[in-house]
């Protein structure tokens, strides 16, 4: 949470014409995407290299659901839950 806030503040400071709300959205999107990539890379490393046994099942689960996740992301880029719509932040 602290990184999310400091990231938003730095982007707000460095990007012209960007309001703080947009900087916060960008920071949140960056955090979620970074954690997603880290999960995939960690799962790959845990499967390929010697790692604790308890990581294998969850790593395989992540790697097997990865194609489904990618397909869902490209098929439905805008996710609507109730009255909330989630979409990629757009600087333009």
């Amino acid at each position, binding site marked *: 949470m602290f990184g999310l806030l400091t990231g938003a503040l730095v982007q707000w400071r460095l990007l012209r014409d960007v309001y703080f709300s947009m900087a916060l959205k960008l920071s949140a999107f960056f955090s979620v995407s970074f954690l997603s990539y880290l999960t995939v890379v*960690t799962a790959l490393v845990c499967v390929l290299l010697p*790692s604790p046994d308890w990581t294998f099942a969850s790593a395989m689960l992540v790697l097997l659901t990865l194609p489904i996740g990618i397909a869902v992301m490209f098929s439905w880029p805008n996710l609507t839950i109730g009255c909330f719509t989630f979409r990629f932040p757009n600087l333009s």
Partner: protein
Amino acid sequence: MKLCYSKLDLGRYGRDGWCYLRLTSQQCRNLIHRVPPHIMLALGAALLSTTLGGVGPFEFMMLGLLHQLPTSEMLVSIVAFRIVCYAIPALCSPPALIRPFKSGACEFSLAALHLTKSNQAEVQIIAQNGGRILPTLDGLSAIWSTSQTITAVFNPISRSMDATLSALKTKQPQCLCAASLPLVHHVHVR
């Protein structure tokens, strides 16, 4: 460039870890494949824990997962990692944030695009929306800027597209913010 910095960071961390852990060559051979998964797991735990800098969960995971290594040297290695990857960047970045835009660095140095510059209807649309003129090697091109890009829209006002591409690559750092990317949009296929 960012990849080079990342490699430099990882290299420095590896050097610090190697210096402080004082592993024998046999230990290095045994651990070289075992450490990356443990570091990734520790990083994930640190990120999800929401503690400042992941202090605590990262050390806990590393010491718990690599329990065969000496604790004191391991902790010194982690402190070295924190100095290289956290403390030094944190100390270096605030001066750059005090004045992120030096005076004039982000001001348009390009002339405004006027309606009389071209008979092309598309160029006149750009002119009505704050377009600028980018001088190229042998002619002129109409550009339109966004927060992150400098965009040449449609064909050049005069002369070749090659000169426009070259001007976009070479002149954009002096024309707009360093964060700008050169783009070409909606031009003739050739």
